[in-house]
Each structure stands twice: as C-alpha cells, then as structure tokens.
C-alpha cells in the first residue's frame, strides 16, 4: 500500500461510445474514456457539456442509453442495480461538490458510513474513520455535524469518506467547486496524495485548470463527446 503503483497499460475502467439523453437533451453523444489503475484523470468541460453525466455513467450510478462501461473485465451496463450498488460500496469512492455530507450525522459517522454500509461493525468502522480524519487533518471536527464546520473542513471530511473503504477508483465531481483557492488547493493536495498513497485511480470532474493540474491526464468533454487534449507527464 505504501508503494505507489505506476500507470498500467491495461485500463482499469473503460467507457466506450457512451450515449445518454435526458428528455430531449443529449448529455453524452459517443463519449469514451479509459482510466488505468492509480491514474488521475481530469475530465474538463463547460457547464452542461456532459462531464458529470460521464462520471455518473462510469460509476454505475446512471445507466447509459448506449455504449459500454467495463471495470476489471466486468460490464457495468449489463449489471443489475443491486450489483452496481454493491460494486460502488466495495470498489468506488465519491467526492461531490459541497461535500454532500449527511447533515444529521457527525463528521466521524459520515466517514464511517460507507464502511458500515459494507457491513463493517460500528466500532471498527469508526476506528478506521478516525484514522482517515487524522490523515486529512480534521480530527478536531470528528464529533461535529457538517453544519458546524467550515467548507474546507467539510470537503476534507468528504475526501476521507471517499477513501475510507480503500476504493480502486475515486470519482470526484467538482470537489473544490464550493471552496476558495487556498482551501481548494489544500483539498486537492490531500486527495491526490491520499489516492496515490492507496493506489486509487481518480476520475476528477472539474472546469478549473488549476484543479486539473493535479491530474496525470486531461480529457475535455464538449457537446457530449470526449477529446484528449493534453497527455501530461507530471
């Protein structure tokens, strides 16, 4: 776990020719993306370009109308809702804009939640959650509710929640969208460091270049189609 695995040639997660329409609005129109293990990929694009939809399809949250999503030789598009939910519990982690912490749970309980959903006993889940809060430097807010902490602290708690299950892929949808630049930088540093430390791949949806700069590679989504613009070697 301490060794950061280098990018593998074989993709861990692949989306091929995805199409998705909401009503009469086409969100994805032939988008494709391949993510290798341990790789950090920034998905960029303007509002409404379809980048969040691409993330939701790749995470198995939303089923694409056409196309294929494969994760470790498994086709997500043919999996049942229950199978995709189980996969999200075990292999994926999520960070959303505004954190989206459960307001009634304390920060510690929020971080422990994915573990508990996966069947880990409360005490053990909270022990591991406390460890992650420490790694993300927010131990002091563990007993507080999300409404009582700052935006930056809340987002770090959200990052801890995404990583606590040791996922293979972390999906981060505008994780710094609600933060000032200083807090945003801090959250991105902690997220990428922690992901590299655990070997998790990160699919990072953002429209900010300074956030995308943390990624190994950038992909632009425009009108529902993907275009690789930069092959970064960082």
């Amino acid at each position: 776990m301490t060794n950061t695995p280098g990018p593998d040639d074989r993709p861990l997660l692949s989306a091929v020719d995805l199409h998705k329409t909401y009503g009469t609005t086409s969100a994805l129109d032939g988008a494709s993306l391949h993510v290798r293990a341990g790789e950090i990929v920034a998905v960029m694009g303007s509002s409404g370009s379809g980048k969040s939809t691409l993330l939701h399809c790749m995470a198995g949250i939303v089923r694409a109308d056409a196309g294929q999503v494969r994760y470790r030789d498994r086709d997500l598009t043919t999996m049942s809702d229950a199978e995709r939910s189980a996969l999200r519990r075990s292999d994926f982690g999520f960070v959303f804009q505004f954190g989206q912490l459960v307001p009634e749970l304390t920060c510690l309980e929020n971080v422990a939640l994915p573990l508990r959903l996966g069947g880990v006993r409360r005490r053990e889940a909270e022990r591991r959650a406390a460890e992650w809060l420490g790694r993300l430097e927010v131990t002091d807010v563990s007993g507080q509710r999300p409404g009582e902490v700052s935006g930056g602290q809340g987002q770090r708690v959200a990052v801890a929640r995404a990583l606590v299950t040791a996922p293979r892929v972390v999906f981060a949808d505008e994780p710094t969208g609600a933060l000032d630049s200083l807090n945003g930088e801090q959250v991105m540093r902690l997220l990428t460091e922690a992901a590299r430390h655990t070997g998790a791949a990160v699919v990072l949806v953002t429209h900010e270049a300074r956030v995308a700069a943390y990624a190994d590679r950038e992909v632009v989504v425009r009108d529902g189609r993907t275009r690789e613009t930069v092959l970064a070697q960082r």
Partner: protein
Amino acid sequence: MSAARRGPGWAADLALGARLVFAGGRNGLLRTLMTAVGVGLGVALLLTSSSISTMLDGRSERTAARDDQFFGGGQPPPGDQTLLVTSADTAYRGIQIRGRLLQPDGTHPPVPPGLTRLPGAGEMVVSPALADLLASPEGTLLRPRLDHPVVGTIADPGLSGPSDYAYYLGTDQLRAGGGTVRIDHFGSESTSEGLDPVLLLLVLIIFVVLLLPIGVFIAAAVRFGGEARDRRLAALRLVGADAVTTRRVAAGEALVGALFGLLAGAVFFLVGRQLVELVTLQGISVFASDVKPSPVLAILIALAVPAVAVAVAQLALRRIVVEPLGVVRRSAARRRRLWWRLVLPVVGALLLAPLLGGIDQTSGAFNQVQVIIGVMLLLIGVAALLPWVVEAVVRRLRGGTVSWQLAIRRLQLDTESSARMVGGVAVAVAGGIALQMLFAGVQHNYVQSTGQDVSRAQAMVLVHDNLAGAALGPLTERFRAVPGVDGVITTLDVSMTAADSKPDEYGERPAVLLRIGDCAALRELATLDRCADGDVFRAVDQDFPDQTTPNLPDPGQRMEVGFRDPATATRWALPTDLPTVPVRDDPGAGRVTGVLATPGAVDLAALRGLDGRVFLTADLTRPDTIELVRNAAAEVTPTAVVQPLRATAEANRFAQIRRGLFIGVVATLLLLGASLLVGILEQLRERRRMLAVLVAFGTRRSTLSWSVLWQTAVPVLLGLVLAIVLGTALGGTLLAMVNEPLRLDWPSIAGMSGLATGVVLLVTAFSLPALWRLLRPSGLRTE
C-alpha cells in the same frame, strides 16, 4: 428598519413574504401546493363538521315530514281524505328497511312526501337504494319478501338520505285497529329529545377530541417546507432585517399558504359534497344538498385558519430571530424548555378539578366552557409536551444499524417537524382513550339487560293479522321448514271477556288474554306440573298475585272469545277443572297473566282475529337463516315482525354517540395519516439530493426504507406513550366528574393505539414508492 417603514412598510413586508412563497421556482410552488393541500384537507373537515347540524336537521325534517305514527289525540273518522296505514318494516342483512302498507278510504287520501300518488293495491313504490338492492344479485333473498310490481320511485323529499331503504305498498286488506292507524295527513313537528348531562358531556368532549387534532394538523400543515422557509428567513435576518420585519415577512408567507389552503379546502369540500351521497356510515347517509356549513362557523373558519397560520409562523421564528446563523448552517437547535409545556396540562387539570364528582347525572347542569377549556388544555398539553419528550428520549439514543442511526440522528437534529407531524395523532389517541374510558365507565347506565333468554330461543316472530285458529299448525310448519330452524314454539293470542261482563265508564268490557298452544309452548309461558292436550290453566304472576288474580275468570265461567269483533266472536265455557299455575317469562321476556289453553280445549276452527307469537330455536350465525325466517314471516303477512333476541340492548342515543365517536376517530386518524404522508413526502423531497448521494455510495433501498419507518415510528411510539398517560389521566378525571370509579379500559387503549399504529404503517407503506422514486441517481444532476 421597521420603524422607518411604518405604515406602507407593513404592506411591503407582507408582500415580500408573499413573494417569497413562490421563490425557488418549482420547489417553492410545490411547497405551497403541499401546504395548500394539507391546510385544505383540514379546512374541508372543519367545513364538514360545521355542516353536521344542517345535515342532521335535513334528515330529521324529512323524517318528520313522512311521519304517520301520531301519539296522543284521536284518529280521524273514515272519509274521502283519510288513509289506513300500517308499518311493515323489515331488515335485510343488517340493512333496516322502512315499509308502509297504505289503503285509502276515499278518493282524496293524503300522499306521503316523495310520491305523486298512492300505489294501487298490490303495487309498490320503492326508494332508489331499495330498487338497486332488489335489482342486484345481493338482493336475491329479499325479492321473494317484496315480490310486488314496482310502479314508481320515492323522490328525495320522502327519504331520510340517499341510501334510505324504504317502500310503500298499496293494499286493500287493512282494518283499523292494532298497529293500523287512520290518518288524514303525513308529517309531524320535528322534535328532538334533549341529552342527559353525561351524554352532553360526551358529545362536547367528542367535538373537542375530534376538532383539536384538526387544529393541530392545520398548524402542522402551514409549516410544511418549514426548514427551507426558516433558512430563507434566517438569511434575510443575516442580511439586516430586524426582528419585526422578519416577523412581518413570515406572516406574509404564512398568510398566503393559509389563503391557498382555504381555497383548496373550499374546493375539497365542494368536491367531497358531491361524493357524500356515495358514502353510508353506520346506516346513515346524507344528500349533498344537506351538507351546508353554518354561515357563522364558516366565517369563523375563514378567519381562524389564517390567524393560526400566522401565530404558528410567529412561534417558529424564535430561533430564527435569536440565532439565524445556526438555522442557515443547520446546526442542532438548543434544548427545549419544559416549564411552559407543563403549564398547559396542569392548568387544564386545575380547571377540571372543581368539577370532580360535581356533575349530577339526573339533573345537574355543569359549566360547559370550563369543561371544554380544561379538556382542550390537557389535550394541547400532549402536542406541546411531545417535542420535549421526543428530544429528551432521542438525545440518549446511540448505536444501532445504519438505518436506525440515520433516523435517530435525523430526529436529534430536528425533533420539531417529526413531533409536529405526530402531535395530531397523539392528541386524537389521548382524546379517544379518555372518551372510551368514559364510555366504558358509564356504559352500565345505558346498556341494559333485555331479560330475553337466548338460551331458550334465538328469534321471535309476531304476527298481528287476524289469524284464524286453524293457522296454528300451518304457522308452526311454515317456520319449521325454514333451513337452519331447529325448533318452533307457536302460540295464538286473543282477548276474551266474561259473557256477562258489563262495559265500564269508558265503554270497555274487562278483557282477559287467552293464549293457545301445545303443552311444549305453554311450558315456555308458565310452570306446569302436568299438561295434556285439552288442559286449560289460569296463569298468575306470583310476584304480584293481588293485582293479577282478581281479573282472572273462574272455573266453569262462560266467556266471549274475540269479543271486540262481534261478527267473529265465539262463546266458550271454561272447564271446571282449572288449575292455577305461576307464569314465567317467555324467551322474549314477556310475562302475561291470563288463561292458557291447549288446542284440544278450544274450538280452534271457529276462532278468528288471533295474533301469533312464534319463538324459534335457530342457528343465527348461519348466513341468511334470519333472512329466510323473515321471508317465511312475510309470506304470512308483510306486517309480521321478526326480532332476533338479544340479552342486552344499548340505549339508542348512547349507541349513536358511540358510533359517531368511532367514525370520527377513524376519520380524524385517516386525515392525520394524510398529513403525516404529506409531511414525510415533503421531508423526502427536501432530502432528495442527500438520498441520491447515499445511493451513489451504494446504500441499499431497504436501509433507507427502514430509516423512514424508524423516523416516523419513534416519535409515534413516544406520542402514543404520552397519549396513553395523559389520555388515561383525562379519562380518570372525566369518570370522577360523573362519579364513576376509575377503571382502565385496556381494550380501548389497545384499540386506539392499534388504530394509530396501523395508520403509521399505512403511511410509511404509501411513502415508500415516493422514496424509491427519489432514490434514482438523477437526483445528483445539477445542470
């Protein structure tokens, strides 16, 4: 801020509040719609309650207008404008059917309301409900009983309600006397017997118990979407609005919701009014035209609902005014204070305390206002204490499964909305328990033993139709042939007098009852040591021998049997061997002294003008046995009365009030269930993004479903415990007020709690499809 804008500032603040209702686009409109629906349901129920007196008046006026049984005063002599009428009521599978046989004396008889002319002999006019029943497969067994050509339908003015089952049958077989009366008009003054103090107390408390939860419900409904509204108002406060301005803006918002609610309530009421004719509760139905709210009460409702809305909004502002930042950031609220919540039930109890043992059940008047206010305060105490109780209990809860943790943490963060939603249920249950205790306590005054012996017979048939003596055997055989009837005991009655008796000052000759039956039948009427066909007995009441024996004829005395109709009267000499025997109650609790004769002792073939009395041993639990008995009786005469025997009978008014309470509590709980459902849906909608996030994590549907159930069930359970405690205390107080000992009525406590639990489960079940719809990840979309 407000001081500078006094005058027009008022209107501007209110208008700003009104505009905020629609802020937030679709969400704002949806919230307003939910409030309007919630308040509207309550308003519709209040308008319906305010129509009860007109509904009852309409029924009793129409019932009085068709009345043909006048007590006191003589009957008119036969003439061109008179009519003979007799009752031929019957029942069918629990439905009471009003029947009348009509026979005009001349060419201009009175016509009952709802008819344009009298039916001819053998013709029948029926109510629409009866026509439908007779035409349906359900009415198969009734058709033989009312097998006459239907020549018309009774119009609305002749019916108590749309589901009134009634018929008029033309005949030419009636003779004045007995149950047949001669009338020259239909209709009497509509009168209503007053209520005794205990029943009045019950009715008053029923109204408080049923209307108070509606008030609590309306107060809860105006707070639908309260979380978002509070955050909006707190934001206003943070940007500089002072407390007064914030209060005015909140009032403006609340007023708009209440006005929409009033409009929705009027629409629900008008729509429901059209559907009211389709509903029959406990045999009572009303015409849509009867459902008219009392104008005074309607105006009161129109004023009270906005006033309640504004008052509730102002009460909810305390935290927004004091700590707006906490509201915006959704931090946990400060702990609730207990003292003022306790004041309400304590003052209520103090108001009722002077009345303990103070209501005289026979004559006593009591201070109705004091009782109403006392009961109201005690019951409002339930709603006021509940948030504190919920908060105090859930604060201590820890651990558990994820669903339990989500629910408990949610309750810890916001006890108010949950407690507010179940407050109405708790108030209704507390009131219901108190009333049921009072009912159970005073029941013995209103539920009395009939004296009927259901171990000897299960049904009684009375035939008043000038039977011939020869009818005895056929009558018995007719009922014996009915499937399900095991035993038949038949007697024939006729009046007789001593042949040499003289009329008294009123022109009446002293009459003695002659009852004819075989030995088995006579043994049901008197204690006989021996009996054989041909025997005759003098039956005396040993409890009152002095009053009954002197009227009885002597052995060997010559009698005139059926003396009231000289054309059919016969002479009969009593035997010289005439043993005196003690009477006993017959199975129908009848106890008649007179002469008992076996068929062989009289010339049965010569006797006329007899009444029949038949006791049946039958298994009435078998479906339709009693209907087959009624059909057999109707073949003898449509005026035959078939009466299933019962050991006890409830006083009519008492039974009506008890039925009313049950209907009211069920209706109130269903309304509160609707409120709970709207509240849960509103909470779910507010949390749809959070739910979508939980789904993204892979949270199971069942986890979130259980969470919704716990979140509702925990406050309901606590509410029920509180309701049982305060309801029992109120019930005990009410019992003490009518000088009855305290008795815990566990069946009613269990029943009320069960009803409430059923409503909660139903509501949770109904909310699950909405939850599952919200558990779609599309909730994560922001664009």
